[in-house]
C-alpha cells in the first residue's frame, strides 16, 4: 500500500510522521500489532470530507519518536469495531467521535451512549442533510435529554 510521508522539510526533526491507509476490518489486528511493538495510542480523530469519513488512529513510539497514523475511509453507515479492549483509554476518543460525528462504533468498553458532552445538536460536525441517516438499529442515535441539574458539592 502506498505510504504518504509528511516530513517537515524546513527544520530537521527526529522521528518520522507517516500515514498508512488500512481497511476498516483490519483495524483491530493492526492495533494488536502496535501494542506488541510497545507503541502508545496518541490520539484518534475523524473528519467528514468528500462525503465519507476519514478516521485516523495515531500511535507514538516513545523511544524513537516516530508517529504512525492508521487511516480508514468509511461510509456514513459503516460500523467500526472499537479497539478499547486492547487500548482501554481509546474509549474516550471513540465516544467523542460517536457523539460529534455520528460514527457507529461497537463494543466500546466504557460506553457513554452519546452522553459524553451532552450537547443538544445531534452530530454537529456533519452537514445538516447527513445527520438523520438511519444507522445500525442497536446503536441508533437518540437526541440527548435536557441536561439534569448537577448537584453541587457544597463544602
Amino acid at each position, binding site marked *: 500500500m502506498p505510504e504518504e510521508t509528511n516530513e517537515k522539510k524546513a527544520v530537521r526533526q527526529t522521528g518520522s510522521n507517516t500515514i498508512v491507509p488500512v481497511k476498516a476490518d483490519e483495524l483491530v489486528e493492526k492495533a494488536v500489532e502496535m501494542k506488541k511493538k510497545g507503541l502508545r495510542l496518541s490520539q484518534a480523530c475523524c*473528519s467528514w470530507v468528500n462525503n465519507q469519513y476519514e478516521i485516523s488512529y495515531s500511535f507514538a513510539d516513545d523511544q524513537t519518536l516516530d508517529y504512525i497514523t492508521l487511516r480508514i475511509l468509511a461510509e456514513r453507515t459503516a460500523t467500526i469495531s472499537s479497539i478499547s479492549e486492547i487500548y482501554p483509554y481509546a474509549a474516550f476518543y471513540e465516544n467523542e467521535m460517536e457523539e460529534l460525528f455520528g460514527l457507529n462504533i461497537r463494543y466500546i468498553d466504557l460506553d457513554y451512549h452519546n452522553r459524553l458532552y451532552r450537547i443538544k445538536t445531534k452530530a454537529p460536525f456533519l452537514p445538516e442533510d447527513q445527520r438523520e441517516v438511519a444507522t445500525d438499529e442497536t446503536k441508533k442515535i437518540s437526541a440527548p435529554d435536557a441536561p439534569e441539574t448537577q448537584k453541587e458539592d457544597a463544602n
Partner: protein
Amino acid sequence: MGKRSVIPFGPQHPVLPEPIHLDLVVEDEKIVEAIPNIGFIHRGLEGLAPDRDFQKYLYVVERTCGICSFGHGLGYVESIEGIMNVEVPERARYLRVVWAEMARMTSHLMWLGFTADAFGFESLFYEAWRIREKVLDLMEMTTGGRLIYSVLKVGGVLKDITPDMQKKILDDLNEIEKETREMTKTFLDDYSVQTRLKGVGVLTKQQAHDVGACGPMARASGIACDMRMRGYEAYSDLGFEPVVAQDGDSYARCEVRINEIFASIELVRRAFEHMPKEGDLSATVKGNPNGEYFARIEQPRGEAIFYSEGHGKPNLDRFRLRTPTFANLQALCETLKGAEYADVPILILTIDPCISCTER
C-alpha cells in the same frame, strides 16, 4: 465487602479551578472507581474551523486555554507551516522558544500555587504567584499581553525582542531563579508536605505506559519521553535533556515540574546566546493550505497533537486538537483507585488538569 456509595465531586468545588465532575464509587472511605463526567466547558471551537480564514482562526485556537495559550498558537502555526512547507527564519524560531519556555514557567509556578493551596499551604500559594507576576511582567514587556499573547503568525512572529529587553530578561531571570530555589526547597523539604505527597497515587512505569500517560505524569514514573527531544523550532540546537524521576508518586510529579522550571530558565539563557543578532521575523505565506499534517509539541502538561486538513480553500476543512489532559484523564482514574477520599483534590491537581483544553 463494605457498603458502596457514589459521591459526586464537582463541578463547583473550592479547590477546583475549573468545573469537572467525577462520580466516585466509594467503599468505606477508599475509592474503588472514578468515572469522569466532562462537558461543562465544551464550546465546540473545532466546529469554527470551516467558517474562519486560516490565518484568523489562530486567534480562536489561542483562546482554547488561557494558561497554555502560547503552546496552542505554536502548534497551530506549526501544523499550517507543515502543510504549506514554509521555512520559518532562524531568529523567529529562537524567539518562539524563548516565549514558549517562559510560558511554561508561568504555568508551572501557577500549578505549584494551586497544589500548595489544596492542602492548606496558603503562604506558598501567594509566594509562588508573586514570583509568577515577575515573569508575567517580562511577558507583558515583550509581547503586550499577560496571558493571551498573540505574537505568532503563520510563517514567523510579529514582534521582536530588543537588546535592552534581552538584558532585562536575563537580569530578572537570575533573581527569579534565586527566589524560586528558596521557595521550592521549603516546599520539598517540609515534613507535612512529604507526608501528604509521598507514596500517594503511585503510578508504576508499566501502568503509566498502559494508560497512555504523557508529559510530567509519565516522566515522573520513569518514561523519558518529551516532545522537545524531537527538535522542533530551535530545540535541536540547545542540547535539551528531559527531566525524569523514578518513584511515580505525587511527590515525584512535584519534583519533575519544579525541576522543569529551572530547566526552562537554562533554555532561555542558551537560546539568547545562540540567537542570531539580526534576521527576518517572518516568511511570506502565499496561497491556501492543501494537504494535512500532524504537528506535535510539548505543552507544560504534556504532548499536544495538532491536526489540520485543508483542500485549497482559505478555510480549513478540519482542525483537531488533542490536548495532554485528555490523555491523562485515564491516568487520573487509575491513580484514584485505592486512594483515600481526602486525597482526591491533591491527586486531581497532580495531573495538572486543564479542563478547558480537554473539552475545547
